[in-house]
């Protein structure tokens, strides 16, 4: 049985700047992985490579889908999404003037089979599928506790709820891998605790593999099973939270040379 996601020699150059350099990762199904590193270490760039926003300069990204290995490096984001990859964004990218419910519905797009003509002529498949979409989207909103606000504009939600909506929207893709880019950023301790519960819950319920970028070390150390540490675009360490915590390179990267 091969692992779910394999990254080999992944590199991204922007002009002369090497934002991600020769990164190798192996991720098994069901793992909860943390990706940490100082600001500007290339974490988000790595996410953008994994989700197709950027094309890799070099290297391979391989995913195992239905027992077969597929190379997803350099594919367009919507194609990668179709393989069951979902993400949230560091700087929240909701569809602001759509309602909460519609935000979730958009993400269910790949499971909708009726086409433009069906939509225009309102064929029976339009009605049956729209009904299914509505039910499914409401179910997901219930999951993250936003069902009561489903008719509000996404932009009117408070910050913490916008982050939750991003997670609900990502779940609507029915992913196998979920990338969370700083899900706890800007949250207070209570909200962070709720988020932790939510992450556990969705992982178990949907059988997800979660990879998250986070600066809140207590969150990362408490929930992640394995951690990758990135600095200046290179992986400098990986292992269990305890291993990483005591790694001399990691300490140096975070606290500087002198310690």
């Amino acid at each position, binding site marked *: 049985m091969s692992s779910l996601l394999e990254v080999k020699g992944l590199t991204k150059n922007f002009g002369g700047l090497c934002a991600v350099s020769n990164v190798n990762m192996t991720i098994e199904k069901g793992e909860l992985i943390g990706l940490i590193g100082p600001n500007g270490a290339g974490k988000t760039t790595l996410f953008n490579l994994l989700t197709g*926003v950027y094309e890799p300069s070099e290297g391979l990204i391989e995913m195992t889908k239905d027992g077969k290995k597929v190379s997803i490096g350099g594919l367009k984001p919507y194609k990668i999404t179709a393989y069951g990859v979902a993400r949230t964004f560091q700087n929240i990218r909701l569809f602001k003037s759509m309602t909460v419910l519609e935000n979730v519905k958009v993400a269910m797009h790949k499971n909708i089979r009726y086409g433009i003509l069906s939509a225009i002529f309102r064929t029976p498949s339009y009605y049956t599928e729209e009904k299914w979409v509505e039910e499914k989207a409401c179910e997901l909103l219930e999951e993250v506790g936003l069902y009561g606000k489903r008719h509000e504009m996404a932009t009117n939600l408070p910050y913490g709820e916008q982050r939750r909506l991003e997670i609900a929207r990502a779940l609507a893709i029915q992913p196998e891998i979920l990338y969370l880019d700083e899900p706890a950023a800007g949250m207070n301790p209570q909200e962070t605790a709720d988020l932790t519960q939510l992450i556990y819950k969705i992982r178990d319920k949907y059988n997800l593999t979660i990879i998250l970028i986070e600066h809140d070390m207590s969150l990362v150390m408490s929930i992640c099973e394995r951690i990758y540490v990135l600095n200046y675009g290179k992986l400098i360490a990986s292992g269990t939270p305890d291993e990483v915590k005591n790694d001399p390179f990691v300490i140096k990267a975070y606290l500087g040379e002198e310690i």
Partner: protein
Amino acid sequence: MTQFLQQIVNGMSLGSIYALIALGYTMVYGIIKLINFAHGDIYMLGSFVAYIVTTKLGVGFFPAMIGSMVFCGIMGVLIERVAYKPLRHATRISALITAMGVSYILEYTTQLVMGSEKKTYPVLLNNSTFQIGSVKVSTQQIYILVITIVMMIVLQYIIRHTKMGRAMRAVSVDENAAKLMGINVDTVISFTFLLGSALAGVAGILVGVYYNSINPLMGMTPGLKAFIAAVFGGIGSVPGAMIGGLFIGIAETMVIAYGSSLYKDAIVYVILILILIIKPEGLLGKNEREKV
């Protein structure tokens, strides 16, 4: 071959005018990311101002040019303050729609005041022709080219070597950071409009001299072509605007000479679409990437 060289020479004077207008587009776009759709009409105003002062007051070419520059500069700043400033942080589309509104206002107010008929431009520059080899060159063409080059050098000097120029470059890179460094962003933006519009004023009088006739709706098409020149050269780049202007001017005269004058506008749009597909950042432009 002679005809080819002749067309190059003709194209260069037309291209110089496009380059002068293109500078206004390129500077404004570089600094606030707005396609100042009304810029073409600013130069139209310039040619009308020069027309009025030369026919009514009887002044010569250079005083008229200065007058046109001053008037256009003031108009540019005024338009920026009234119409664009409130929209500085709106979407680019809102700003573009506003600019089109301003363009309508300028065109049709001029038409209301001056009438829609063509005005014959007075002869302001002596127009003798002489031969260089087998190519005919007119003094007008020399004037146009020299004035354009002088303007370019002055502009390049202002942008590269003055305090204001440095501030302009800073604002174009990062408005907020510039603000934090104590740069008065509003003044810098107004100054940019002042410079760009004054150059359009120069272009205005040159267009009058070049075509011999002017009308209130003439701003639009050359304005668009100048914008395309700016895109071709790389928007935000001063030398790019010069190269783009000359290229568009020469391409247009070539089409007239070797193809059909009916297609002279079409070729410019074809160039635009090709450049946008092949190299959207233009010849000398920088590629921008949205941060995710």
